[in-house]
């Protein structure tokens, strides 16, 4: 097609997802922002990134497409055009025009249909992917919402009543009409952890307490970090550390001895001792742990961390193959 023809083609009205009820802290997220931490920019992105990835795969989207992170309902969304959708992550109570939806399944949405998501029954966060993806503009290479810095996502903020989310339907519904589902990852109350650079600065007693106690998730947890409740860990060494880079998964121990596991919205630099790092393959589990949940840290090593990552990739290939034969 030459340029002249392309120009004369009538411009179609962009498809939208209209927000009838916004819920609380519903945000546009993708796999996060990278390459800007040296400017102080947080990673952002889905806290349960694997769940958003699965939802994207189910609707035949590339993995980096943006979806919605849903935490507290009720959320109601109206589809302007035919599309297909999938919600992964937490088990939830939701329907499409009265027909119940299941976690980890893809369904076809007719124009005008309303998706209602009332909240999670188990787990904490659910991820909606729509064929074509939420087409908000990219900011610094990502469509994720950075709430603190107020950019990215939909106008740099959580969704509000009346928002019209653009959807890119070009690549959409054709291959989506068959309803299919996938196995979701199994949540267990165990996070594998690699000892951190300051691990040795904690005495034998604190090290033992770190691995052996069941840690509780504090109500003060958010997208920046999960604060844990338990027996405080006393650092044997004294003195302040120089500010260093931190990233999601790093477990810091502030002076009160109660660990904080940093998550996607964590600041780029910190100065607290780092007792450990949650392996990348297990970090999603925290995103699905509600306040009050108890879990344990399991000491791990590099080989295990890499094997776990490889296993996750194989799961994705298997899903791709079973859905689209490639």
């Amino acid at each position, binding site marked *: 097609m030459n340029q002249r023809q392309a120009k004369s083609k009538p411009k179609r009205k962009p498809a939208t997802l209209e927000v009838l009820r916004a819920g609380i802290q519903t945000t546009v997220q993708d796999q996060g922002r990278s390459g800007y*931490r*040296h400017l102080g920019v947080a990673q952002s992105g889905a806290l349960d990134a694997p769940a958003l990835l699965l939802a994207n795969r189910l609707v035949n989207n590339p993995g980096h497409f943006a979806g919605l992170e849903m935490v507290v309902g009720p959320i109601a969304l109206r589809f302007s055009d035919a599309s297909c959708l999938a919600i992964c992550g937490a088990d939830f109570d939701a329907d499409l025009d009265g027909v119940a939806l299941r976690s980890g399944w893809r369904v076809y949405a007719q124009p005008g249909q309303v998706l209602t998501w009332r909240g999670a029954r188990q787990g904490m966060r659910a991820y909606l992917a729509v064929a074509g993806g939420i087409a908000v503009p990219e900011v610094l290479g990502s469509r994720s919402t950075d709430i603190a810095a107020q950019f990215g996502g939909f106008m740099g903020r959580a969704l509000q009543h009346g928002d019209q989310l653009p959807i890119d339907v070009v690549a959409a519904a054709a291959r989506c009409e068959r309803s299919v589902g996938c196995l979701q990852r199994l949540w267990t109350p165990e996070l594998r952890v690699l000892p951190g650079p300051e691990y040795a600065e904690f005495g034998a007693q604190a090290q033992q307490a770190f691995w052996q106690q069941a840690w509780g998730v504090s109500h003060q947890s958010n997208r920046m970090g999960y604060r844990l409740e338990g027996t405080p860990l006393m650092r044997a060494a004294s003195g302040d550390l*120089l500010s260093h880079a931190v990233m999601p998964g790093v477990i810091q121990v502030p002076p009160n001895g109660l660990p904080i596991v940093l998550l996607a919205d964590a600041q780029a630099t910190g100065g607290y001792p780092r007792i450990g790092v949650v392996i990348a393959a297990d970090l999603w589990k925290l995103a699905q742990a509600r306040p009050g949940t108890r879990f344990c840290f399991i000491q791990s090593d590099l080989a295990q961390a890499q094997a776990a990552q490889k296993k996750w990739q194989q799961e994705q290939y298997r899903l791709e193959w079973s859905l689209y034969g490639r």
Partner: protein
Amino acid sequence: MTALLSKPMSFYLLGENAAVIQGCAPASLICQRRLWSLAQQLRVLGGYREVVPGMNNLTLVFDPELTNGAAQLALLADLWDRSEAQDFTSRTVPIQVNYGGEFGPDLELVAAHAGLSPEQVIAAHTAAEYLVYFLGFQPGFAYLGGLPPALATPRRATPRLSVPAGSVGIGGAQTGIYPAASPGGWQLIGRSSLTLFDPELAQPSLLQPGDLVRFVSL
């Protein structure tokens, strides 16, 4: 100078996808300059998710599927040995500040703590030259070295829930500017109307490591 340079650096992994090079305390400018030049080389090499200088340390985030930690540590050690403290042609960035009043509600407190008049605090704060060591905390937030020791003031016991964008503050022995509104515990002495971070620009952060900052009283 050579004594400082010969102090051993440490190289270690942080989780499965980051490698860190760390200098010894106390922090030195020579070490920092070598780290800036190392960061520059790593960015030119490319292929990394993040290259993040801290205070006398540098963190390299890589893709563990494409490379492994041991290789990255070896590379860092090798590049460090061959690196030199670059002669940075520092830019000097003037930052105009409205001191005191509604813009700097803690100016009097900082003055009382230092045993100076508010005018003397402004004079001392504007006379000094500050070096950007690294960025962090929020987009475009510069960690500055060079605060006159007399102006060091402890942080507020109770942090403010919201500090306006552009606020210039003192926290302990540090001074800095909040690019965006955020909670904050620093003592606020003034405010600048400059945009310190704009994600729409090709270079989003006004200040870069190695830059010199001069505060100018309006």
